[in-house]
């Protein structure tokens, strides 16, 4: 049984059981790592969506004069009101924050959500492909082990 991976054609049947185990372990690790990255991307996307939602719901004109509690520290809140419903300050990365109006901020977050969404899709494709390879290797490994067992226990297989 031959399986080609990214230009490297490896005849799995020619590998010893030990080498197959190594390949399987390597694929296992890769899938693990990719799945963790996938989770992180999903979490990031969720955070951006939350930002978008809090802009839409919180900074509407209805909240303008409502009394708010503003956290000064993790355990100290101070009463206040929303001073500006038109502008927000957005974290754009590397320690920079930009003041934007509500519309621009919405566009910014939508852009981020789409970008991360694209990465999520391509990562999903890669994880699935690796999972496929892993299953193929496992199958060949299992067959080899069965073959090794039967060849070393001819009495058992004869019955």
């Amino acid at each position, binding site marked *: 049984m031959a399986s080609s991976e990214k230009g490297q054609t490896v005849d799995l049947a020619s590998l010893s059981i030990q080498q197959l185990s190594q390949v399987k372990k390597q694929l296992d690790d890769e899938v693990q790592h990719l799945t963790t990255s996938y989770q992180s991307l999903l979490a990031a996307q969720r955070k951006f969506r939350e930002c978008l939602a809090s802009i839409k719901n919180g900074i509407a004109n209805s909240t303008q004069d409502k009394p708010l509690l503003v956290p000064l520290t993790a355990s100290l809140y101070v009463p206040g009101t929303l001073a500006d419903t038109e502008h927000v300050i957005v974290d*754009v990365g*590397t320690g*920079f924050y930009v003041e934007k109006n509500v519309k621009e901020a919405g566009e910014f977050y939508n852009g981020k959500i789409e970008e991360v969404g694209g990465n999520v899709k391509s990562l999903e494709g890669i994880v699935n492909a690796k999972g496929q390879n892993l299953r193929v290797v496992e199958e060949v490994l299992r067959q080899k082990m069965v073959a090794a067992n039967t060849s070393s226990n001819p009495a058992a297989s004869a019955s």
Partner: protein
Amino acid sequence: MATVDQQKQLQTLSDEYQGFQTELQEAISARQKLESQQQENKSVQKEFAKLSDDANIYKLVGPVLLKQETAEAKSTVDGRLEFIEKEIKRIEKHISNIQEKSEDKKMEVSHYL
């Protein structure tokens, strides 16, 4: 049949090879970190390009947001990007260097076997 001396030599060589492999791993992970910083700074640069000159940009210094001039912030990010690119080139040279040395070691080790 390898003599004790030869075995010791082999051991030393293969230890050195291991050392190269570890160094290679570290260099590769440093390169990945740089690449992710590069990505982040690129997206900040794009964001700044969209801004008009009177938009307010703030920099996070400790617990405080400090107001910065648009031009200054833009040039800070550009400068950072240049630095990161230089670092990436340097590390890539380092990586191919180590790879070469490690290949040579591998050849040496295989001559002993």
